[in-house]
């Protein structure tokens, strides 16, 4: 397995996250209820947790456990039925739609499972798009975008359109786009779902390294427990509830080596 960027030694990662690091994201007693034909169902049921700057957290669970709904709430795409979500201390529930859109482009970085990139923009344009959205694209921004892509091993792919890149390369462009505007929180929705195992490890390893290096709060939804090897904490959900948190290195590695759900 080749290494794409200089990754810090893995083992001490968890201990690097100081207790003094600011809480970037806080979830307090969040409930999300959906109406169904037979009544209602709590897709997220009284979930609370927080993520500090520089911390990379995995949200795992089987299909239907509520992890994607949770991610949507964290991304200000869904409003919780009750409870609070605070990003940089700002309560999402108190925001109107315009404020939520602004929060998404300023404070949140995104990578998705598929259809990640804008197909008619090349690699560097896709990354610069976040700066354009924030009215922050200048000469320095262009240089940083190209440098970030180069660091991700895509220096020779800057002008390539998404359909001229492999799935792994596209995910790395998406990672660069998620980080270029220095967001508070970086959210990744099944970033390895469409990749082969080797590419998947490379992508998550790269992602983790950049989250730590840039001191961002990262949350990755995944069904592939092997990818948890690179995270600092694992939140396990089942039936909408947060059923277990894996915090020690030993617990996380044991979970990761257990394989897929």
């Amino acid at each position: 397995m080749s290494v794409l960027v200089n990754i810090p030694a893995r083992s001490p990662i968890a201990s690097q996250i100081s207790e003094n690091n600011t809480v970037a994201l806080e979830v307090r007693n969040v409930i999300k209820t959906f109406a169904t034909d037979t009544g209602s169902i709590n897709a997220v049921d009284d979930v609370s947790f927080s993520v500090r700057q520089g911390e990379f957290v995995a949200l795992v669970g089987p299909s239907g456990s509520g992890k994607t709904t949770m991610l949507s709430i964290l991304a200000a795409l869904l409003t919780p039925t009750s409870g609070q979500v605070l990003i940089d201390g700002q309560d999402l529930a108190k925001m109107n739609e315009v404020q939520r859109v602004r929060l998404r482009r300023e404070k949140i970085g995104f990578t998705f499972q598929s259809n990640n990139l804008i197909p008619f923009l090349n690699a560097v344009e896709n990354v610069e798009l976040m700066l354009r959205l924030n009215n922050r694209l200048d000469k320095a921004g262009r240089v940083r975008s190209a440098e970030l892509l180069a660091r991700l091993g895509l220096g020779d792919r800057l002008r390539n359109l998404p359909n001229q890149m492999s799935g792994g390369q596209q995910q790395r462009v998406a990672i660069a786009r998620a980080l270029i505007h220095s967001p508070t929180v970086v959210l990744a929705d099944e970033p390895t779902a469409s990749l082969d195992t080797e590419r998947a490890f490379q992508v998550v390893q790269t992602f983790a390294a950049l989250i730590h290096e840039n001191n961002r709060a990262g949350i990755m939804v995944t069904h592939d427990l092997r990818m948890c090897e690179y995270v600092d904490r694992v939140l396990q959900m089942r039936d909408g509830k947060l059923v277990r948190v894996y915090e020690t290195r030993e617990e996380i590695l044991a979970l990761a080596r257990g394989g897929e759900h």
Partner: protein
Amino acid sequence: MGLAFYLAFKEIWRNKGRFFLVSLVIALITLLVLFIAALGEGLGTNNREYISKLDGQLVVFLEKSDYIISASRLRQATLRTVRRVEGVDDAGPVSTSSTAILLPPGSDNEVLKVSLLGVEAGRPGFPQLTAGRSFLSATAREVIVDQRVLDRSEIRIGDTITIRSTQGVEDEFFDLKVVGTTTGQAFFFQPAIFVAPSVWEKVRPKSDAELSNTVPAINIIVVRLKDPAQAEQVQANLLNAIKNIEVADIQTTINNIPGYTAQQGTVQTQGGFTLLIGILVIGGFFQIQILQKVPQIGVLKAIGASNPVVGLAAVIQISLVTAFGVAIGGGLTWLFSLGFPPTVPLFFNGTASALALAALLLIGPLGGLVSVIYAVRIEPLKALRLS
């Protein structure tokens, strides 16, 4: 605005082939609409041109002629009375008929069909000369011809033309000397030639019963007013002073030219339906495109693009593609029009063409309206596979 334009332009630029094909469809619609507009204008002009340029404000017809020129017959006495009515500055007779100019051997056609109009020199109804002079006398065998006659023949000022005129059941031929030219004087789809009333009576085609006539028959009397703003008052004065007449303004006279209103209505309906088809075609294309782009738009919204940016990008994209298509279509229309013979009545009137172009530029945004609304309503959750 800047971001919306950037997204719209980049997508077009990176998918040039696809968008060019859509522009070509718009270009073909443009070609069709402009040709229909030009044809409508050409047919209308050829029908009404002489009447629309009359040096007068009112037209006197025989009562119950329903403002149809060919159905109206007026006496010389009526003309004299009209000139004496209060508010009338001057009045001139117009007599209409149709004849054929014999063309020299070797020409494309044997004859050139023309409208033969009898008018008094210097009176309302007499055309504005572009070259040459007026008739020397009321009986001089002289003629003033429309520029189209010169365009379609070798005839020039100073030439003598021969017209063929059926007198009873026999064809007779009359020589007329061309002394002047005028321009834009088509009447009833034919270029007009003008002679003095007494000459007109002599040379016009006649039935057996009319052969002994010597007094020119008048179809209509064109009335020039001292004060055009008093048209309604003078119209009432005319109707009070003279029995057995009806009076119309120029527009009413045009609208009652046989077939004119029906013809214009048909052409305008064709143009309208072509625009409607354009709206549906463009609407369908952009709707399909938006449906294919749902995940992409979801991603854009999820990463913080606002609804105005997404909506505006769609509008700009549709407008750019439409404008490009209309420009190609306009160019193609111009190129095709160069190859049409002068007998095809295509008139590219500035106002009519500008209106058609404006309508064409609107069909894109109108057709794409549904897809723009659809794009704005796409939930960013689509990016996360949730709906």
